């Protein structure tokens, strides 16, 4: 990392620290009732307490599990369906209008339907999370597959490569930058929907924890949960960036 990048990083941490300090000040001055707004000190204490008693660990694990299963299901299905649609122009023409109808549909509108069909179960959560997270992945995959350099297909033909080999050695790697970008967007969607499902269906997780804490006016616990959700989003996004960077090292060479 060079000097300028380091300075920017330090500056961004300073801004974050400034916000925490401001929050502490507002809490100390009791501008908002402590029943609703704990200071960072109390939120931190609650975090430490939650983790040492193990309560927060199990809630965090619950949310991560919902998120991971939903996201993985969305990724597998999204890439598979996207590949099928993207590799055929006819499929794209036939299916595109239906996709355009389904895509802008708010996933929250699907939740009552899912609850009616599957009940307040883990299966319902999996379905809803996967349904919401599949769109960015599927659309990115369709685009990636449609944009494969036609010359490479001619190379594949002249090498008499099998259909499977063409998909795995030409189309998928060529579409991988698009697919990974879609997967990164879906990660956020999966986290949001995990929390929503936990709140609505009472499933074990941080969403449920936040809801119960709010109902009991345990503002410190509530904030601890919210902070933990923020950290989860941040950490998963950073992990995804690292994975992208590693998998797409060849693109860095191109620039």
């Amino acid at each position, binding site marked *: 990392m060079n000097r300028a990048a380091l300075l920017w990083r330090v500056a961004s941490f300073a801004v974050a620290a400034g916000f925490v300090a401001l929050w502490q000040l507002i809490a100390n001055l009791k501008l908002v009732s402590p029943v609703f707004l704990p200071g960072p000190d109390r939120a931190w204490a609650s975090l430490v307490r939650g983790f040492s008693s193990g309560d927060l660990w199990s809630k965090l694990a619950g949310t991560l599990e919902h998120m991971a299963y939903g996201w993985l299901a969305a990724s597998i299905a999204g890439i598979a369906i996207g590949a099928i649609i993207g590799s055929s122009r006819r499929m794209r023409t036939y299916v595109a209008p239906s996709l355009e109808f389904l895509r802008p549909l708010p996933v929250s509108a699907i939740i009552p339907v899912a609850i009616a069909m599957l009940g307040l179960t883990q299966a319902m959560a999996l379905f809803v999370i996967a349904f919401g997270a599949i769109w960015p992945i599927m659309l990115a995959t369709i685009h990636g597959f449609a944009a494969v350099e036609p*010359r490479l297909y*001619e*190379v594949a033909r*002249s*090498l*008499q490569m099998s259909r499977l080999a063409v998909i795995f050695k030409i189309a998928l*790697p060529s579409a991988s930058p698009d697919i990974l970008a879609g997967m990164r967007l879906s990660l956020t969607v999966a986290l949001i929907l995990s929390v929503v499902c936990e709140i609505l269906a009472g499933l074990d997780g941080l969403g449920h924890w936040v809801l119960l804490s709010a109902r009991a006016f345990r503002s410190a616990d509530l904030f601890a949960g919210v902070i933990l959700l923020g950290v989860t989003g941040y950490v998963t996004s950073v992990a995804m960036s690292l994975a992208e960077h590693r998998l797409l090292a060849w693109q860095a*060479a191109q620039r």
Partner: protein
Amino acid sequence: MASAAKRLEVLSGAATPQIAFDGVTLVLGGKTIIENLSLGVQPGEFLCIVGASGCGKTTALRLAAGLYQPTSGKVNFDGQPMREPRREIAIVFQDYGKALLPWRTAAGNVSLALEAGGMTSAERPARIEELLRTVGLPDHASKYPSEMSGGMQQRLQIARCLAQEPKTLLMDEPFGALDAMTRQGLQDEVLSLVAASGATVIFVTHDLDEAIYLGDRVIGLLPHPGRIGIELPVNLPRPRDQLSTREHPEFLRLRRQLFDFIKATEQ
């Protein structure tokens, strides 16, 4: 010298053609691109096709590759009708930047052809190294195409084509995008590679000097629709040399004849 023996066969017309166009017509989008083209390419022959732009040279090459099917007439390879591209026929595309896999290193790009040929992963590294050495890229195995110059990328594409162990090498203006020095170096390398492997070559170019310098025979196409306008056997001694061959009276005579032909087609 196996290739010399083959050349004799070519000249005496004893062998059956490796690639034979028989009354080939190709209509694309209602437009006749190639009309009634008949042409035999002998095993081991180096055939160059020249012509004004839009005369269907590249199209003829794509027909020979099996990437296009003729509207009427036949294209035969070793006496068998060509229905689809085959591994014995390798194609060197002009746009090397698009024909290489940007996510694979030089070694990986060569490996693609070996994988398609069913070579085991244990055998591949040695063969890849050998092929990269053949085209003069032994120290660039772990580079990505984007880290290589145009000339190096085209060498890499040639290495991948050699990995197919082709009977026929189809080259579509392979040096069209390269500078003059790189171009001459690659011309000589292609000549020695072809002499070593005994492969048949169809080489499309718009550079008339290049066609005469490389070929055993040069065919000039007439445009709209594409058909043969001139056919010149090149009786220049081999191995060819960038200076003495280009100064040879026969070279100059052929060059004159070909230039006159192209000039006439453009009017």
